[in-house]
């Protein structure tokens, strides 16, 4: 995997809710992909135009709690700005995450949002490097 956009996201099963998992060559890419997985719970990210950007900043030494903080910050921004996001630029350094998230205001007929996300949980919350060196960032979110 030499392509810098080798990262991907996926959902995993949880009986009541749904899990988000981001995978990437770097920790930042895994966090960015996890955010895509979060947004894909609500709508197809391809329907969301990256028209305006907001900035997010989180500090937390524990990488797993940092992932939850990051996703919860996005949930807060989506709820209060009534926006959906589809593109992320993330850097993570020494427990400090800085990100730009691009998206647009919710347009119900076009986005057909399926469900609101209440919060990122600590269930199945894991951030680690797998045996091929890829970073994995995941948790279950409450919907």
């Amino acid at each position: 995997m030499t392509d810098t956009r080798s990262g991907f996201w996926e959902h995993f099963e949880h009986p009541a809710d749904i899990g988000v998992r981001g995978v990437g060559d770097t920790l930042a890419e895994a966090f960015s992909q996890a955010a895509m997985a979060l947004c894909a719970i609500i709508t197809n990210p391809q329907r969301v135009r990256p028209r305006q950007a907001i900035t997010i900043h989180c500090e937390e030494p524990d990488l797993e709690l940092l992932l939850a903080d990051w996703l919860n910050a996005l949930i807060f921004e989506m709820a209060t700005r009534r926006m959906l996001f589809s593109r992320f630029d993330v850097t993570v350094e020494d427990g400090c995450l800085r990100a730009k998230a691009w998206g647009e205001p919710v347009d119900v007929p076009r986005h057909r949002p399926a469900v609101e996300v209440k919060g990122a949980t600590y269930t199945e919350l894991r951030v680690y490097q797998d045996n091929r060196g890829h970073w994995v960032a995941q948790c279950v979110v409450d919907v």
Partner: protein
Amino acid sequence: MDMSRLQQVSDSEWQIPPTGKMRVPGVIYADRTLIEEMDDKVWEQMVNVATLPGIVRASYAMPDAHWGYGFPIGGVAAFDPEDGVVSAGGVGFDISCGVRTLHTGLTPAQILTAQQRLADALYHRIPAGVGSTGNLHLTPREMDAMLSGGARWAVERGQGEAADLARIEEGGCMPGADPAQVSAHAKQRQKDEMGTLGSGNHYLEVQRVTDIYDADIAAAFGIKQDDVKVSIHCGSRGLGHQIGTEFLKRMVVTAASHGIELPDRELACAPITSTLGQQYLGAMRAGINCALANREIITHLTRGVFADIFPGSRLDLLYDVSHNTCKEEEQIVDGQPRRLFVHRKGATRAFGPGHPALPADLREVGQPVLIGGTMGTASYILAGTRTGMDKAFGSACHGAGRRMSRRQALRTWRGRQLKDELEAQGVLIRSPSGRGIAEEAPGAYKDVEAVVRAAHAAGLARRVAKLVPMICIKG
């Protein structure tokens, strides 16, 4: 769930004997089939809850229990006020999510004369789904008044009826709320969300009573065969979610300093006597008031729609129950009254006859216990029992409980097709999202009838009536 790890007490009660760090046993109230369908994680989570400091009598699971966060959803646990803990995970993200049921005085035939129009008007008037906002926009001062006043605040603002208050837990206003403990973020998330339904499994339904199981209690509740009722299922919206998120983290980070060993981070808790524990209780009670105010405002909007379409109709409140709470209650333990902090996570308070917390006109028969179904199946009304007070601190199930993940539901059903099928059965669905409908497909839930039967058989609550939907508004 692996049945070999349980001891059978009766057909509807099973025990996990205490081992290892468990301070009390685990008790599941359900029949064999329901337990076999439960995830092994329910067992694990019940055992984890049983290890928490100050837990009294047992870690309980209701018949609809499923894998939750820290606590099982459908979990009940009570803690001693001195040695015990309060857990943000044990309450859940959607604080005081609950159900209320209203009488309409109308017949199914009357609804059928205007079913499409009523469905459209309810869908139009009640904000539901992602990105929706309410008609009220709260200033900081009004926010604090709402967080202290609950449904009483809504009534004072002309968004509800005073007669409703006696039919809401705590008279519509949870005492001990401390708006100062609710963060600016939580308040910001809520300021435009009052009177919104939310999404996911939240709904407003117009329902028809199809079965009466206990004629005396039904009469006391004001329920007759073929009555039309309205049920509303929603919670504390963004405010509750934000309180849950923030306190969960604070409790995780400080657990070790309180000498608490967490078997699972999601079990995050703090001693009730600690500053953090008290702060959480103040914030969580404010969250309860937010949910009570929210359901009151949605009721007010619903009344407006019914008044337009059925002039002269009156929607009186039967009762309003909350599912995700921690409440300080007097309970009888070993024959002695004790103050306990009872966590009900995805479980309904179900106080039995004679309980002083019940309004005078319901005290003889017990608390109405409102069990939400799915849009294609049925909802049930039960009544709290005296035996339930001893069995699980006056608690019962809260709904069907999922048996299939959202992903699997999406692979199995198409929203549009489901909507058409339900419409052919006489159930009108209104929702902004076809995918949302598919994720909430009736088949993705456990058999609510089996859950209710098990709650009845276990003596947690008595079956009173069954209702099926005619209209369902989904967020």
